[in-house]
């Protein structure tokens, strides 16, 4: 594998094969973990809801139904879910009010990789708009599910350390401005899973989510 960058190596394995957890422990350094091997199942109801539908609307033999079948078949081979988390001590945060009273803070960046969005773009170019809409919906749902799973792992870890954990919260949501992505990316080596930040704080690949979870005294 020699010269292949780390994030590329992860993408070369089908999801589910690498269940490894990489750990890096150094004194006075945030603890960093790269996690892969997630099992992502998509709830059709949620994708339907995204495009303004309810589950009873998904009648067989309609173009919409066919698009869902297509996306269901296609998406598993298009996603490479991976995440990096970084556990900070209270003094290692930047003092933003979003971290108030936290004893520790877990920062996380997760992604399903770039392939699904390329497939969506190809569908748009080929005038397969319904496919593109539904597949994009699957992608958004997949990364949301991934973020939920990461958050659950982090909360479990908080508990095992004797802390109570907060809900997950992302830069760009009201109380934590998007510019704070700079801080998240300073602390989380997201390049390890192939995620980069643009100068205006957007993550590439697009189907990526970043968030923090605070650990409080229970």
């Amino acid at each position, binding site marked *: 594998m020699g010269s292949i960058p780390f994030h590329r190596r992860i993408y070369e394995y089908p999801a589910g094969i690498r269940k490894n957890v990489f750990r890096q422990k150094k004194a006075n350094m945030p603890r960093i973990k790269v996690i892969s091997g997630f099992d992502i199942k998509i709830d059709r109801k949620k994708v339907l809801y995204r*495009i*303004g*539908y309810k589950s009873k*609307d998904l009648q067989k033999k*309609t*173009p*919409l139904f066919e*698009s869902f079948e297509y996306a269901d078949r296609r998406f598993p081979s298009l996603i490479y879910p991976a995440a990096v988390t970084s556990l900070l001590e209270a003094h290692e945060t930047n003092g933003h009010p979003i971290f108030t009273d936290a004893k520790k803070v877990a920062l996380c960046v997760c992604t399903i990789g770039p392939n699904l969005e390329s497939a*969506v773009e190809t569908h*748009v170019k080929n*005038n*397969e*708009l*319904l496919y*593109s*809409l539904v597949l*994009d919906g699957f992608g958004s749902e997949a990364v949301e599910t991934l973020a939920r799973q990461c958050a659950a792992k982090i909360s479990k870890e908080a508990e095992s350390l004797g802390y109570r954990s907060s809900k997950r919260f992302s830069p*760009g949501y009201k109380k934590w*401005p*998007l510019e704070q992505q700079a801080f998240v990316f300073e602390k989380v080596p997201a390049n390890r899973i192939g995620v980069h930040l*643009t100068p*205006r*704080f*957007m*993550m*590439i690949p*697009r189907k990526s989510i970043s968030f923090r979870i605070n650990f409080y005294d229970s």
Partner: protein
Amino acid sequence: MDRDTLLENMKTAVIEGNKQQAEELARKAVEQKEDLLDMIENGFVPGIQKVGDMWEKGDYFLPELIASAEAMKAAMNILQPEMEKIGVKARSTGRVVIGTVEGDIHDIGKSLVSSLLSANGFDVIDLGADVKLTLFIEKAEEVKADLICLSSLLTTTMLGQKRLLNMLSEKNIRDKYKILVGGAPVTRQWSENIGADGYAENAMSAVVEAKKLVDRKG
């Protein structure tokens, strides 16, 4: 197939979102050496107009609109090159430059707007997501656009919409273009505050609004 049956079937194919049927009918029209402009204006276009009406009445939702847009585009992809061969141009409703404002990667909504505009006879130049403000202006000048459509899903990039309007005024070219803005956090109030010409909440009302603006432009 006689002209009237052809036209009627074209209309139905678009209403039903039947892409294959629309393509077959377009090919048939070419084979039969029909007047292709007549086919578009009295066959396919009434179909997409009817779809718009059905949407307004609440009979059609987004997926149906998209399926119809796909059918319309598929037919146009066959007819347009044939018309070019004989030097006839389909009547354009207007020329549009569209994109998601720089600093924002949310673009499926913008792509829908762009697809429905093009299905409704607009000439659409879609610049994609995370588009530099200067590029919107350069492209609009280059292609002599009627309309610039700006999509923003982030409150931070809404400010980009305002900046673009200022840039146009500074260059003394504000009056050359109608500006239509949209995206989840954008409201009519916002569009009025920044002095845009129009706002639409979703892709189909974007088409309605775009038509109004182009008519007003004259």
